[in-house]
């Protein structure tokens, strides 16, 4: 791998504000939180889903159901790289006729979300499925778009966009690194 330097484009305050705004937007669009289930895609999507649930709780004063949906075994690019570790799937309650909000950190090619929709089909039939991402960095390879976006980011396709979250990375930040050379 070529050396690269990571540039911080968003700090913890900005991330916190974005999450608060997304939480407001989610409850506004869905007229409350009664039928909502937030499903985070491991690893950082799960952490973001928890933060969104916390934010929704403070707005609405109600608990919102959260779970985890691992998509590894549904990916169409498994054979392109060494065996990936399988993450956890935990569905908090039956999803039939619920509104599911898939939560991920970065939306890029859209392949992860396509796999998530396939995985979701196996565990239930929600009334509707929405997508919430902290960063939409463009360069889609499939016709997929997010309903709730923290920030649109213009980054070249070869750049790496990383979301760091305190729970596992010691601090909150969004970084971009472009391979040199």
């Amino acid at each position, binding site marked *: 791998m070529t050396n690269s330097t990571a540039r911080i484009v968003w700090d913890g305050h900005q991330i916190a504000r974005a999450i608060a705004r997304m939480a407001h937007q989610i409850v506004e669009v869905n007229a409350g939180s009664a039928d909502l289930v937030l499903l985070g895609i491991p690893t950082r999507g799960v952490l973001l889903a928890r933060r969104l649930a916390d934010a929704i709780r403070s707005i609405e004063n109600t608990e919102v159901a959260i779970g985890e949906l691992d998509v590894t075994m549904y990916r169409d690019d498994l054979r392109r790289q060494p*065996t990936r570790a399988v993450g956890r799937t935990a569905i908090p309650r039956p999803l039939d006729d619920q509104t599911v909000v898939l939560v991920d950190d970065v939306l890029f090619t859209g392949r992860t979300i396509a796999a998530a929709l396939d995985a979701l089909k196996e565990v239930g039939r929600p009334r509707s499925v929405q997508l919430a991402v902290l960063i939409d960095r463009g360069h889609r390879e499939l016709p997929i778009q997010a309903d709730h976006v923290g920030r649109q980011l213009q980054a070249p396709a070869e750049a790496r966009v990383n979301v760091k979250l305190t729970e596992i990375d010691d601090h909150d930040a969004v970084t971009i690194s472009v391979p040199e050379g």
Partner: protein
Amino acid sequence: MRHLLSAADLSLAEVTSILDTADEMHTIQQRQIKKLPTLRGRTVINMFFEDSTRTRTSFELAGKWMSADTINISAKGSSTSKGESLRDTMLTLDAMGTDCFVIRHGSSGAVAQAAGWVRAHVVNAGDGTHEHPTQALLDAFAMRRHLGGGGAEAFAGKKIAIVGDLLHSRVVRSNVLLQRTLGSEVTLVAPPTLLPTGVDEWGVAVTNDFDEVIHTADVVMMLRVQRERMYGGFFPTEREYAELYGLTPERLARLKPGAAICHPGPMNRGLEISSEAADAANSLILEQVTAGVSVRMSVLYHLLGGSSE
């Protein structure tokens, strides 16, 4: 991972990854629709040169639930009964584009040898009296759930007694090797005539007295008396064997509270294990069977789920 031939091939990280993935497979097994697209387009051939119901079926289900094309070949219906050598049979099937062979063979070492001939991945599903690594993995899986889950720390310092016909067992060697990696303390219990030669070099405790360990073991694993592999008198009478080495109702009562009972099956009820013990609340025997599919799904995923290097 290229092949799974011996439990000794697996690092602690690999074992943990296989068991963690098996946990996820286990939840998928509870779904109404047990189907993952993960291994679509991959071909797995089960080659069983010895009788087997549970191992063959669980490998077949594991492959099918992950959408691999799974084919079974038994020695009887194959060209080996027309005199074709194992090598030629393997090369023929390999040339058809097989991605993975799951092989059970009566000769120790045959599976490792076969792995050297083919381009495909190879899983050892039992070779002679040598090894049966997926059995040891599923035992570890069932034990880990019983011991409270978590990673390898579930096994640290835990006492596991493996009791019975160790001479004819491939399960015992794989378990000893795997449990060494996991960090538990294994004691082997058998009459002197049923201990494998060289057992002193395995680095585990050995005793001829079951009652020495009955009240301290966290897990007692009873192994089947393999009558079909016995051509001489290894013990005076079955009644005496059951008395000395069987998990009788009396011994069941003396087990440490919460200790788990395992048996890889098929069981000789009344010989190495009493019905009271086999059906006891802390018996993991049926969990082991369920675990068999989860663990084999995980093993196939680890072999076939990524790019082939």
